[in-house]
């Protein structure tokens, strides 16, 4: 039997080059399907884990599924436990979801509010804290539901849901940013602690917000203060963050400095007049990093620290509040890596390299020309630089995916991904390592669309470790020729004609968790690649979405 493919090797190569490895699969815990909805705006492509050991942590062996483009998820074998949602994109704002939502067993909604319930509040307590009607079932009511006219059925619930997320997210980003950590591992850990602190505070006392007076800055102050205190002692939180929180002045100072800014941002969302306005304000506020950026500058300059007086803290609070609601970032971002001169080197022989700019790659007229078939030693040559200093939380994982689409009329397509690649930082080195049992798959469609396949190449990338250096003048090499040729030689019995591939291909690359930006600090496009992992008959079946920042460009295979 032979299956003719046109794109497999490139996908394999790029996937391997990106060190995408995967993991994930886990055991079912029920007998009937369990469905739900993840909402911070409907979340698309989010990872949903059935917390079968009820420890509030998404474990490697726990059953995993993903949300569709409307936030829906299903565990085909059921889930009798709480669920944990992370990653993905809000379909309303188009922004990456930041945080880790939870819901208790039996809930059909997973929202920032159910996260507070899963963190210890009762529905009655939360309804009171948010001035919601008594009896509102927060575990089953979809806050984003709309009527036939597209207007929210329960705008108050939606606004309060988003406002709570704003407080949780920005507090989390502040703590993680102060610690100069990047990646969802740190973010999710802190988010969980912040939510627990919020829940503990909101169980009693005055409401956080009400429909008449809006968001209470006093309550925000107590929430942030409690969050700093809890996070500073949580065993799960990186010591870098604990140290940074102390260096920033501790609970009282930090809460004082950010309370007005956080309140203003939440209130902006609460002031949304209709569905579109709420979405616009949410997008603006969630995407705004002014609080963390400004506080970091204040800490770095010594304006803010353990010795900051209450009066100085109040001054900083007022100053921060003036920038927290501006749509643009107040200060230039730091703590990221970038390609020197926005360029990529491609070496056909592993030694000499041709340099292409990112814009060359993105140009449909030029693109990157690659000799085909390539040598085993073919490699990417990357000159990475760092802006600021950052590190990763222990056990931080990343995913990467590549999508290659045939241009010029053919239907050939390849989507490849690996997941669960461990990423860490040591000095100037970013170390990527693939676990022993990764999940690494390729979904391919032949040029005539008559053949499709899912290929497992985990065995070829498992155990690989690669180091990317950001040291001055250092050049990092990502070998991929051998893997590509392995694909040609090893798989050509089934995927014939790969060596005959020629012409132009549209390439999309997504890598999440890496703080990779353009040289000027601006972000790459936020993209998502859905990689089918099964074929349901002839159609793609289940899939894994890989969402993150990435690039879209072109390659041309030549003789």
């Amino acid at each position: 039997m032979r299956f003719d493919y046109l794109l497999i090797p490139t996908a394999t190569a790029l996937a391997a080059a990106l060190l995408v490895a995967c993991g994930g699969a886990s055991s079912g815990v029920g007998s009937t399907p369990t469905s739900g909805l993840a909402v911070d705006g409907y979340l698309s492509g989010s990872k949903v884990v059935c917390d079968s050991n009820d420890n509030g942590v998404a474990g490697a062996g726990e059953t995993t599924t993903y949300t569709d483009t409307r936030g829906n998820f299903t565990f085909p074998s059921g889930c009798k436990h709480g669920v944990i949602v992370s990653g993905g994109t809000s379909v309303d704002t188009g922004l990456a979801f930041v945080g880790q939502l939870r819901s208790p067993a039996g809930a059909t909604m997973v929202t920032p509010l159910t996260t507070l319930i899963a963190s210890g509040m009762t529905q009655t307590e939360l309804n009171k804290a948010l001035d919601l009607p008594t009896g509102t079932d927060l575990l089953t009511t979809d806050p984003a539901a709309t009527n036939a006219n597209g207007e929210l059925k329960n705008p108050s619930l939606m606004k309060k849901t988003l406002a709570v997320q704003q407080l949780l997210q920005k507090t989390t980003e502040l703590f993680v940013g102060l610690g100069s950590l990047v990646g969802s591992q740190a973010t999710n850990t802190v988010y969980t602690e912040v939510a627990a602190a919020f829940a503990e505070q909101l169980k009693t006392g005055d409401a956080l917000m009400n429909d008449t007076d809006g968001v209470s800055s006093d309550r925000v102050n107590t929430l942030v203060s409690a969050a700093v205190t809890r996070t500073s002692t949580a065993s799960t939180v990186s010591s870098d963050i604990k140290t940074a929180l102390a260096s920033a002045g501790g609970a009282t100072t930090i809460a004082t400095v950010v309370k007005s800014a956080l309140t203003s941002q939440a209130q902006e969302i609460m002031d949304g007049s209709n569905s579109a306005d709420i979405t616009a304000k949410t997008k603006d506020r969630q995407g705004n990093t002014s609080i963390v950026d400004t506080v970091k500058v204040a800490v770095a300059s010594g304006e803010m620290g353990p010795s900051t007086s209450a009066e100085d803290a109040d001054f900083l609070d007022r100053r921060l509040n003036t920038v927290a609601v501006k749509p643009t970032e107040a200060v230039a971002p730091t703590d990221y890596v970038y390609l020197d001169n926005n360029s990529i080197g491609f070496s056909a022989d592993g030694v000499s390299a041709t340099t292409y700019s990112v814009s060359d790659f993105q140009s449909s007229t030029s693109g990157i020309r690659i000799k085909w078939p390539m040598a085993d030693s073919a490699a990417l040559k990357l000159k990475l630089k760092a802006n600021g200093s950052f590190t990763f939380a222990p056990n931080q994982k990343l995913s990467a995916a590549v999508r290659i689409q045939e241009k010029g009329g053919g239907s050939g397509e390849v989507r490849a991904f690996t997941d669960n690649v461990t990423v860490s930082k040591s000095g100037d080195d970013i170390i990527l390592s693939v676990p022993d049992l990764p999940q690494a798959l390729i979904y391919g469609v032949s040029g005539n669309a008559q053949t499709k396949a899912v290929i497992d190449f985990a065995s070829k990338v498992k155990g690989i470790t690669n180091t990317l250096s950001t040291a001055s003048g250092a050049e990092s090499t990502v070998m991929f020729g051998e893997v590509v040729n392995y694909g040609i030689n090893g798989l050509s019995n089934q995927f014939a004609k790969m060596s005959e591939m020629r012409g132009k291909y549209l390439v999309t690359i997504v890598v999440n968790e890496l703080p990779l930006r353009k040289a000027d600090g601006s972000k790459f496009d936020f993209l998502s690649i859905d990689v089918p992992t099964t074929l349901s008959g002839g159609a793609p079946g289940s899939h894994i979405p890989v969402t993150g920042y990435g690039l879209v460009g072109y390659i041309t295979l030549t003789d």
Partner: protein
Amino acid sequence: MAILRRVIAIFAVGGWLGVAGAAPLDVFLTATPEPSVGIGTLELGVDRMSTELDVFNLRNRTTNSTTATQSYLAQHISGGLKLGEQGWVSGNLNQRAIADGATDYRYTSWQISGQYRLLEDQSWQPATALRVSAWGNFADQTQSSKAVVMPGAVLNSVKITRPADQQLQADLIGTWNLAGGTQVNASLGAGTSELSYGALSATTTIDGCNYNLAFTGNAVYGVVILPCGTGIYVKEVYDNSGRLGIDVANEIAWRGRFVQAGLNARWQDGPWTWRAGYLFFLVQREAVDAILASRKRASYTQNHTIGLEASYRLQPNLQLFAYGLMNSNSFFNEIPVAYNSSTAARFGSLYSVLGAGVRFDF
């Protein structure tokens, strides 16, 4: 019993005991099927061939086949009822188990017939009857563990669910009653066959990995059977380009037309009644035989059946019988559904069975 042993020996020596023609036992068709006493008849019987019975190793004397059927066991119940002076309706239900060494097939066969005598015999004019039949075979599934070589793949095993065939058949039968209870019968028939199936699946091996294949029409969906080595492997694959070279519907669910002609005689000797007959069968199948030809493989369109039966009347309305039937080309015109592009080669073999049973007239 000595006679019975003799019958067995005769067919064994002849080397080609076999199943009857198209519809069951058409080799003994007669225009006067009604019993001499009573208005109907009921028959129970068993057909058998096995290594023990095939003492002369006849089944291996095959032509163009290395996959002869190894053993056969069937039980049938059949009956007929007289309707007026010219009418006769009959039915037959047959359970068959066929093994070819690597594969077991279990079919249920059925037949219903209505026969009307157009003319009674006068002088040299034979009694003439028209019979119309519907008959067929079906099974829950058939599974072969023998490798099947297709143009694009070698299938290690093939499973077909709900395979079935249906036939409509018409026969014109003439019967001459001669002196001394001797009867000579001639028949000429024609009919149509149509095969169907529920689903086709198979297993194959690609680069050392085994795959389950499921066919939907000519599209194939394959899923790897783990474990599968330590390298890169295709986990799932779907292909509707026809690269396997399998035209599923035409290869296993063909349509066809057939004709048959037979001649048999019956004579009596005291309590003994003997029947001997010959049936020629010719089928024209759509597509499948052309596909076989394109692959330079043999196809079979003709079958010759010879049958001999001896019955002993214990009571006026009770007989014991034994018969032997031989086909030149195995079962292909009695179980059309068993014939497809992957099994056709097996129909190049001689095959025969022995049968025995009891017939009760009422």
